[in-house]
């Protein structure tokens, strides 16, 4: 039986038709849920690599449909949305991703004789850890600091994609969209009836009952 989690039965999407969601919110979240799964910026091989990296950075339970992290990043790059700044030696976002993925794959092949996506998890983690610490600097990086790529580009885009998804909001008990209704109860341990109830002291049943009525 799958772990019911900290917020059993809570689904932020149940509020979609309540005063917590305005039209604009419904429109943008609907579009996100319908993000094309086929890449429009990445190649198929790059897409598989991004999926493999995301599985290490934001691992997901198999008991529910996964957040399509790679597809959300592909969508962002396809549309050309950028952060608005980059560090020294950093190319712009599309180029940074292309080059970073190629360089990571080259490191994987040089060290382990196989592409990154085909490595076992611990070897993938070790490479990612080296990248995070700035320890990868093969010619394929083209002078782009691997640490900056990890922090400013890759990790950021991955967590931003994951936590843009309602599944992730439900998982951490976030109230999600809240316009125009907002909230009334603001103090410690104060929960509005349209917020997630947490399973505390091992009592998932009570939280589950409350979460069924969130809306």
């Amino acid at each position, binding site marked *: 039986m799958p772990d019911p*989690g*900290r917020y059993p039965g809570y689904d932020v999407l149940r509020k979609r038709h309540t005063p*917590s*969601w*305005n*039209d*604009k*919110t419904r*429109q*943008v*979240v609907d579009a*996100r849920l319908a993000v094309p799964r086929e890449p429009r910026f990445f190649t198929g091989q790059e897409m598989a690599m991004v999926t493999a990296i995301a599985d*290490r*950075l*934001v*691992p997901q339970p198999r008991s529910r449909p996964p957040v399509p992290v790679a597809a959300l990043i592909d969508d962002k790059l396809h549309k050309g*949305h*950028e*952060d*608005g*700044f*980059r*560090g*020294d030696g950093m190319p*712009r976002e599309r180029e940074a991703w292309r080059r970073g993925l190629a360089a990571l794959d080259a490191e994987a092949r040089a060290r382990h004789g196989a592409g990154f996506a085909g490595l076992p998890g611990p070897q993938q*983690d070790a490479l*990612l850890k080296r990248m*995070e610490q700035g320890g990868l600097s093969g010619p394929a990086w083209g002078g782009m600091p691997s640490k900056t790529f990890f*922090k400013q580009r890759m*990790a*950021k885009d991955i*967590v*931003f994609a*994951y*936590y*843009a998804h309602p599944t*992730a*909001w439900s*998982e*951490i*008990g*976030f*109230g999600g*969209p*809240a*316009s*125009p*209704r*907002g*909230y*009334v109860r*603001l*103090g*410690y*341990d*104060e*929960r509005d009836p349209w*917020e*997630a109830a*947490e399973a505390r002291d091992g009592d998932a049943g009570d939280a589950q009952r409350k979460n069924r009525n969130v809306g």
Partner: protein
Amino acid sequence: MSDDPRHAPRAGHGRAPDVFRPGAWVPMREYGEDEAVDFVIVGTGAGGGTLACKLAEHGFSVVAMDAGPYFRPLEDFASDEAEQSKLYWTDDRISTGENPIQLGSNNSGKAVGGSTVHFAMVSLRFRPEWFKSRTLLGYGFDWPLDWQEMWHYYHEVEEALKIAGPITYPWGPPRPRYPYRAHPLNAAAMALAKGCEAMGVAWTETPIATLSAPRGLAHPCVYRGFCVTGCSTNAKQSALVTWIPRAIAAGAEIRDLAMVGRVETGPDGLATGVHYHREGRWRFQKARNVVVAGYSIETPRLLLNSATARYPQGLANSSGLVGKYLMVQANQAVWGKMEAEVRSYKAPPSLAITEHWNYDDNKDFFGGYCYMSQGPLPQLWANTQINAHGLWGEPLMQEMQDYNHQVGLKIVGEMLPQERNGVTLAEDKDQYGLPVPRVSYSWCDNDKALIAHSLGFMEKALGAIDATDIWRQEDDTCHLNGGARMGGDPRTSVVDADCRSWDIRNLWICDGSVFPTVGGVNPSLTIQAIACRTGDRIKQMATRGEL
């Protein structure tokens, strides 16, 4: 006109969006490009938006341009972090130095209303001594402004924005009661208050620019908590819903999606107008005066990019100080977890504050800081965890499970002005063909001492309320200021006390870039107060024939 304000201008054909009524318009006066207006203003944020209102109300003809879209918050704004990144200035910029700063979402807005459309609304007055910090406190530079005069203009801005705040403010000389009542504390703010009481320092409800009672067509704040991604109910008193509607009613024209690339100067050396890009082509607007109000990166960038044979270093730059003495504010935090649920996503993020260390001079460094309660939304929080806390994989997912128990304290700290910190032009070009700004930032020893002091104090404050798993976020900065500072001497400043450039008397700079020092409070109230003062001074000078 297109429905997407990012693709086609909304202001024009004699009307501008009515931000208070879905689908409605307000009449707007328009000026011809060949008609020299009294003032063309570049930027419509805390500086430019405020000044446009003041000048129009004083009877001047005003065209105010903004590179960003003209949003209708009630229709265009989602309750969604990702979607609302459309409010940020995300044109290409290079950030370098020993401590490169984060731009984009952190401190830059691209919209009519500028970054006030997504600011955290914290509205604080400077400590009076900061206007003479060199003389009275021994560091930085003196401002050419008098604090008592600024006290008058702070009051004007607080009334204009109906700031919600406490009945009595614990620090500094007496100030009038805030126009609207303070907001109730959320749990995150209660944690700050309890920590201050344990540490023996004062705290108060944060004076904040979101309504605690109805105002005209705007409703009180509903404690939705998406403040820094734009307010979809108009409770936030941004320039977009305060100064700009007033400016239009008084006869100003707003031009959205209008990117100014160059200020033109004539044979007499005076400014003649601005070249701007709108609807696919470069245009020229004639003006008797040009006001640059693009904030601390775009303002120096525009002045440097407007260089001519006569002004080879860029405009208003005989001092060589355009783009120098850029300052950010330290924005370090200490985070922990409470046994109880905090759910800091509810309500404005910074409802309680202490300015204790802005007013206590018994410290081993110059300058001061305040700190406030926090309420990061999930994307920002996860990025803080992976980037500042170094968590990924299962440890990250476990940590995120405690999202509703997180509590945090974060400073706005004074960094010292240094000549080496600033803005230059890079070789790379942006989508308009303009050189990309290159921003360089490095902390000095005093900055590091201030940060160390604040982290130590906040860590004790969280420990005193029995928070657990306490950790320090050591590398973050926030608001920009400086880059075209004001002063009393043309050799060591770019503009005078009236924001008028020393070199070109019909060229003005009115935004945070005129700050000689940055203080330990959020800058928006001071930027608006300076703009109000500048508007009044221009009227006085015009009356006396001194323009």
